[in-house]
């Protein structure tokens, strides 16, 4: 049976029970499936990879039916909508009116509340910080029926605990966010083929001021002097106005990966071939283009359900941040361990995060280098490699991203997020997740 409330990595792949809140005025006690003795967990679009959006000890409460806009002031770009509205819905409505999200992750199929709960970051972290930095206010519904309007001035402690709060403080019913004006649906992009890790850091440094968006894709098959080689992409929203922005259809022409093949289609051979091909797809060192926002921000959304190509065992993502001072050496070490293991990652993404402080108590984004890797699940072999990577992250004073995690140790989590204790104090007594039980032991 397919799991409607699964996580994106589908590891561990187990049936998750769930139900949805019907109206934003309803109390959680209106959900007959929930009982006092079993914990529940808010659930958005399940785009978190691991177990932070799973709660096998009880139910998940989906925001799927809370998908209405409430108001939009197109003069100032302030949008209020229900928790389950997706970033894709938002873009469709606001972009033709000259507005865009301040921060977007690499997929638009996430809910606004999910974006708050993981305090998600985008390619412009170095200029604007993370999603929580642009949230004006939201309503938090607690399981005892209390409703708290949270902002920096009203219930600020709940505001900071809920941003990046992994859904644990209560159920967000609606959200108000600040958008940013844009003149076009396109971006001026520049793709630079670079040959070493050192080059990555120097291009990043030189792009901080000049480019709002920066990110690099790494060729994980490269070794030795070319270790860390890849393509560095940097971009700005087009400043030229070409007339009104046309209507946006984010669903048009999408392919879908319709079924889960019995075996993972991602293996060492395909990864190596893909990486080589991808690295060499561009002959010139430097290539500029005007790119549509959809292709630029959401290349992976072009194939819906692409996670299925990893087969029934699912896959694991490993995303860390290494503080700036240790970034170069630790990233080098991580890449060396991966290339020595022979277990390549299909996608390796590296980005320098900026110094804008995150609002959340335990937000993941902080200043440094973030490296994200995907591995098909091959049992002990995969887990062993990830443990080696963890050790490097830990020694460098880094942290792993809960939204992408299904296996980090309690020790690594608690070391990287000492303020987890404060979040635990704010946790709703009837809410819990597989992730939280795993990394804190709190029941």
């Amino acid at each position, binding site marked *: *049976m397919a799991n409607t409330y699964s996580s994106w990595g589908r590891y561990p792949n187990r049936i998750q029970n769930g139900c949805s809140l019907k*109206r*934003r*005025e309803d109390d959680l006690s209106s959900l007959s499936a929930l009982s006092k003795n079993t914990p529940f967990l808010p659930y958005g679009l399940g785009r978190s990879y691991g177990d932070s959006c799973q709660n096998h000890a009880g139910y998940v409460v989906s925001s799927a039916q809370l998908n209405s*806009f*409430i*108001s939009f002031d197109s003069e100032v770009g302030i949008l209020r909508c229900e928790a389950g509205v997706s970033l894709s819905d938002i873009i469709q409505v606001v972009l033709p009116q000259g507005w865009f999200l301040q921060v977007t992750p690499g997929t638009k199929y996430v809910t606004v509340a999910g974006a708050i709960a993981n305090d998600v970051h985008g390619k412009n972290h170095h200029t604007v910080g993370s999603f929580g930095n642009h949230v004006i206010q939201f309503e938090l519904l607690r399981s005892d029926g209390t409703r708290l309007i949270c902002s920096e001035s009203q219930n600020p402690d709940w505001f900071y605990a809920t941003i990046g709060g992994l859904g644990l403080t209560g159920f967000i019913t609606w959200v108000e966010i600040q958008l940013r004006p844009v003149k076009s649906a396109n971006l001026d992009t520049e793709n630079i083929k670079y040959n070493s890790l050192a080059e990555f850091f120097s291009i990043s440094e030189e792009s901080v001021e000049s480019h709002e968006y920066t990110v690099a894709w790494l060729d994980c098959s490269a070794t030795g002097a070319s270790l860390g080689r890849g393509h560095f992409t940097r971009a700005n929203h087009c400043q030229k106005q070409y007339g009104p922005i046309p209507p946006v259809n984010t669903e048009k022409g999408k392919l879908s990966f319709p079924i889960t093949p019995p075996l993972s289609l991602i293996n060492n051979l395909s990864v190596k071939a893909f990486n080589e091909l991808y690295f060499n797809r561009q002959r010139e060192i430097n290539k500029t283009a005007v790119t549509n926002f959809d292709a630029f921000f959401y290349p992976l959304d072009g194939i819906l359900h692409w996670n299925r190509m990893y087969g029934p065992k699912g896959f694991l993502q490993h995303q860390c941040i290494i503080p700036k001072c240790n970034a170069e050496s630790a990233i080098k070490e991580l890449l060396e361990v991966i290339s020595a293991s022979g277990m390549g990652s299909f996608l390796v993404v590296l980005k320098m995060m900026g110094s804008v402080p995150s609002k959340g108590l335990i937000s993941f984004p902080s200043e440094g280098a973030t490296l994200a890797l995907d591995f098909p699940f091959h049992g002990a072999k995969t887990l062993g490699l990830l443990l080696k990577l963890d050790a490097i992250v830990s020694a460098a004073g880094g942290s792993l991203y809960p939204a992408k995690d299904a296996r980090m140790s309690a020790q690594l989590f608690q070391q990287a997020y000492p303020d987890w204790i404060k979040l635990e104090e704010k946790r709703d007594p009837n809410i819990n997740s597989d992730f939280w039980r795993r990394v804190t032991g709190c029941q």
Partner: protein
Amino acid sequence: MNILIIGASSAIATATARLYAQKYKANFFLVARDEARLSALADDLKVRGATAVTIKVTDFTDDAAYPQWIEEAFTAYKTIDVTLIAHGILGDQEACEKDVNKMKEMMFINGFSPLAMLTELANRYEKQGSGTIAFVSSVAGDRGRSSNYVYGASKAVVTTFLQGLRVRMAKLGVQVLTIKPGFVDTPMTADIDKSGPLWAKPEDIAVGIEKAIVKGKHEVYLPFFWRYIMGIIMHIPHFVFNKLSL
């Protein structure tokens, strides 16, 4: 464009309303029983581009009220370009087998209530001489199956009624559209396992409804492949069909 949506809080109707708000900046008259959801939808449609939205809260068990609010809709907008009737219940087949009142309840909401509305509406559209009347029926009405024949029959009643009404209205330039969705992931089907590949999203159905209206179709299966599936199911001989637990 002026649109009357009956059962507006249904997932399929909501998705269709959103499409018309975004694409046509339409005016809406929305009818449903759940006030909170209805006013949330009204706000939502305005953000998406609707020009005006009027809401009417009423339960369709109250059939005496139909003429009144249909009148209100036509007073609000003079002409109604599109009427979409989308309310319905999936009910509980087993309960309907055991309890005649449960069976009647389902026949009333899915069958007789649309017929009563359509009778009123037809006379108004007759005077108007233009526009579309669309009803959300179901593939389940094509052939009775042991797992849901009461629901199927309640839809078939309306489908047959519309076949005739269509002929009457065609002369006047009014389109009568029967919409037959297959499996759609909505609150109605929340308790059903959605592992098969046949499940569609309400947004997909909405796109199909709008296309069928624009093309002036009489009947549409959504998604399209249900036409072929039902073609096969309807042609299975009785002696085989009776052995299948569909």
